[in-house]
């Protein structure tokens, strides 16, 4: 365990552990992706299958579906560690809790946000998103989903001690997701109409930088409160 004494060591250790744990429960990995696909297919069925109509809605729909899928997967972020007591041990470690949160979110994003980004073009095709919009969709999701995971981690940390945190976490987190949704879907919209994306991507990047710096602090504080309570 010498590795765990350095800060990078702790980060890597937690990161690897989370990936291994996730790999052992493969079905849980796939569930958010299936959810993503099902939600996106509800709109043509529920609203209208007309291609022109759908292609107009597509940027927003894919983003809303991605947002809900991320949210759905957020609840499990700290849950199993809380239940088996390993979260308490992590909190007792001499390294800052900031790193623990960051590495857990990084592992979580790799398996949810990045996976969503890779699957997103499929949804784009299903919803008749014009081909010009695809790069915008991928890039905006690539920059936006880590922010969603980081903000979601705060909600997950606040509700980890509750038996039924599911609906509550969406109540806490969804309003905070609105800026990401606005700039994410606007980026796709701009890509579709052939306008430059740089501004939107820069703003998404700025929000990611802010979330990277602040969200782990808030989530760490929330974890300490939830575990001690």
């Amino acid at each position, binding site marked *: 365990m010498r590795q765990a004494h350095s800060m990078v060591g702790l980060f890597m250790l937690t990161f690897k552990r989370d990936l291994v744990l996730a790999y052992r429960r493969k079905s849980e990995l796939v569930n958010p992706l299936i959810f993503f696909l099902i939600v996106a297919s509800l709109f043509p069925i529920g609203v209208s299958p007309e291609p022109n109509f759908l292609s107009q809605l597509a940027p927003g729909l894919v983003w809303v579906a991605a947002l809900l899928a991320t949210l759905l997967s957020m609840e499990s972020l700290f849950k199993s560690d809380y239940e088996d007591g390993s979260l308490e041990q992590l909190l007792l470690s001499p390294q800052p809790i900031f790193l623990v949160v960051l590495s857990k979110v990084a592992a979580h994003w790799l398996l949810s946000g990045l996976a969503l980004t890779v699957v997103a073009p499929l949804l784009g095709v299903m919803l008749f998103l014009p081909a010009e919009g695809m790069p915008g969709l991928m890039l905006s999701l690539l920059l936006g989903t880590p922010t969603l995971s980081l903000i979601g981690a705060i909600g997950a940390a*606040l509700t980890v001690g509750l038996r039924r945190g599911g609906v509550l976490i969406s109540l*806490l987190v969804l309003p*905070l997701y609105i800026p990401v949704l606005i700039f994410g879907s*606007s980026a796709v919209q701009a890509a579709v109409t052939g306008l430059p994306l740089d501004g939107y991507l820069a703003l998404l990047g700025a929000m990611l930088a802010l979330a990277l710096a602040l969200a782990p602090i808030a989530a760490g504080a929330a974890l300490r*409160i939830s575990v001690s309570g």
Partner: protein
Amino acid sequence: MASKWLPRWFFQLASPRWCYDFTGKLIPWFAVVGGLLLAVGIVWGLLFAPSDYQQGNSFRIIYLHVPAAILAQSLYMLMAIAGAIGLIWKMKVADMVAKSVAPIGAAIAILALATGAIWGKPTWGSWWVWDARLTSMLVLLFLYLGVIALNSAIENEKTAAQSTSVLSLVGLVNIPIIKYSVEWWNTLHQPATFTLTEKPAMPAEMWMPLLVMVIATYIVFGLAIILRLRNEILVRERRSSWVKALLTR
């Protein structure tokens, strides 16, 4: 607990008993001044202020709408700051203030939205418009509701207060981001159709009563918060001897 750079009353307020006594002395002042200003503001605004040359008398709802909108934002700040004080200095009273403010803030946000809708119907022709200001007020209401939901979901009082404080601080950081992103989003999708949000140079006869109403609502809802806070203090301190003595008296 003494500190060189914080005044003594700050720490005195941390004692529930002292806070209860102190706020008790404030109640008559708040009630009299707030009631007077409210009466003056309402009568002045609704009866004596000149009617708008475009909107006629329907603009008079501004005397309720604008104070509510301003107050909804101030109360969120108050809630978050009280929460931060509770987290930093571990003051129970600050936690109680944060808890008392949340439902009042949510109610005021609903009032601002409702009066906005009533005002929107005659002027814009619809109850609701996805205008930047309306949307950010709606999001503010969602933030309030999230704080209230989290507070009521956690049984342990201390954990509930601390978790809520963290959430309201996260919200506080987010409010400007939400505000500006919503404003930008709106101007992207539909360029400002309504110049209503642009403040016209209002004549003094119109904005003076508005100012009175803003101050009056601050005082009246300050009173509402004080009353809730005193209630909360009594409930939480019900096992202490001074509350028992107070109740048997």
